[in-house]
């Protein structure tokens, strides 16, 4: 039996009248998709563990977040006060760390010619992308979780309920609210990582990948929010649809979710800051669409 090989676009099976050539070697059965995915994931995870830059990023993020919490006075005031202190640094730093984890992930293999080699193995483009993404995601989750975990630990050790603002709502302050912040920060990081992986797959050189990553950061951090403001100012967006429109921007979705599920909940009152389901759906769409773009790019001839 003749088979289709490689990417297969220009490769066809032998014609029917020809008997397949026999070769005196053991024919291999293609491993199942989960085995292939695990193999690629394991290699990616090893790469992350062995890359000191990622470790340094984790240390730097820990130092900055602890510093911001300490300077802002949140450490002694509780989890919600610290969340408010950390929100802006997280909005800036999480995307940067996520992009650093992902912007060369696929590009490195492409530049080394390893993507071409991988195409002669029974591995599909989506398995490469998802395996790479999951491997990097584990490292990124650690890089976000550990610093915020340290901050949470520091709050637990130094919380004196000294904040005059939050003392009135002392009963509302809870480590669970801080856990929500951590979960949302990780979700935000994973979405930006997907964007970075897409950039890595689309870019053809390290320099263009870096340039594209910077553009993506600017768009994610500033551009989409400005677009929303412009839409509001021109009347294209009605004020009533603003909360749902915020879900279009990953940054606004993250910010809105944090305010809605941590700060407003603790305060017990306040304006609506997000449409939670729309925001989560927006983040998921950004993540999945980015991985789809990466898969298309890796799989194209």
């Amino acid at each position, binding site marked *: *039996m*003749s*088979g*289709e*090989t*490689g*990417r*297969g*676009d*220009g*490769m*066809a*099976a*032998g*014609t029917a009248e*020809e*008997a*397949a*050539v*026999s*070769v*005196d*070697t*053991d*024919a*291999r*059965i*293609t*491993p199942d998709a989960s*085995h*292939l995915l695990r*193999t690629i994931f394991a*290699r990616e995870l*090893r*790469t992350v563990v*062995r*890359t000191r830059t990622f470790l340094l990023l984790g240390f730097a993020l820990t130092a900055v977040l602890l510093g911001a919490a300490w300077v802002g006075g949140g450490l002694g005031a509780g989890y919600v006060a610290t969340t408010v202190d950390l929100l802006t640094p997280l909005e800036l730093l999480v995307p940067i760390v996520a992009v650093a984890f992902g912007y060369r992930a696929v590009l*490195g*293999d492409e*530049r*080394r*010619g*390893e993507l*071409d*080699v*991988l*195409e*002669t*193995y*029974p*591995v599909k483009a989506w398995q490469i992308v998802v395996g790479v993404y999951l491997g990097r995601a584990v490292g990124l989750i650690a890089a976000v979780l550990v610093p915020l975990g340290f901050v949470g630990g520091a709050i637990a050790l130094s919380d004196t309920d000294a904040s005059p603002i939050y003392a009135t709502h002392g009963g509302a302050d809870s480590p669970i609210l801080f856990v929500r912040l951590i979960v949302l920060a990780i979700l935000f990081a994973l979405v930006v990582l997907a964007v970075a992986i897409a950039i890595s797959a689309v870019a053809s050189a390290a320099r263009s990948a870096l340039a594209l990553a910077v553009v993506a950061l600017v768009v994610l951090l500033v551009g989409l929010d400005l677009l929303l403001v412009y839409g509001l100012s021109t009347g294209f967006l009605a004020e009533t649809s603003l909360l749902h429109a915020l879900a279009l921007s990953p940054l606004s979705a993250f910010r809105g979710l944090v305010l809605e599920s941590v700060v407003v909940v603790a305060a017990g009152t306040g304006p609506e800051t997000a449409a939670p389901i729309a925001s989560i759906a927006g983040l998921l769409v950004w993540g999945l669409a980015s991985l789809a773009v990466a898969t298309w790019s890796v799989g194209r*001839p």
Partner: protein
Amino acid sequence: MTGQPPILRAENVDQSYGDVSVLEDVSLTIEPGEVTALIGPNGAGKSTLIGVLTGLLEPTDGAVHYNGPETARPIGYLPQHPEFRPDFTVQETLSFYASLVGDDETEALDHLEQVGLEDAADRNVEALSGGMTRLVGIAQATIGDPPVVVLDEPGSGLDPGMSLHVYDVAGSITETGAAVLLSSHDLALVERNADRVVLIDEGQIKETGTPAEICRRLEADSLFDAFEASTVAEAGTVRVQGDTA
């Protein structure tokens, strides 16, 4: 010759990038159990043809037919400039690829042994010389025992003894009935070791046959003379496809 039909067959393959035609109406067969050498001047279209034959490039026109046994990896491939992910040992690198065809570490090391590099198993890939990297690349190309092994300039950067060793490895691969297609500029080695030669120039197949057949046909004393007689580029110049069309 094995008496079997071709294991790989290209039919009327065209490959162009915009207005630049790199391959024109290329038809050739790769026979099982043989080492086929693809020779031609720089820029002749060898690597593009290899890309099409391995399925990495979709031909603009024509088709490539694979007629070998069904297996997880029908075609093994060594790129012209093999590189591997840094911070991994040779063993880890080959084990990764072996795992993709369901093989284990022991089988990966067998392929390393086949190229004579088993002593470097624990060395990091970035600590290998260029020649050793190429040998690891050849070991990688044979993982999964593909019925067709395509090696893009496997002898490049290797000392004469190691270049000869590459042909020995290629020969040992064909003992199973597998086909080896390699590109090379070392015409003396090709003449001594290849079963068949495909000479390509300006994106077209100019000659095919055994080295002796080609020499006889072109009334040349050696494959080098035959190469000179059948290629259009002047010595020391590189034909750039498209610019002279």
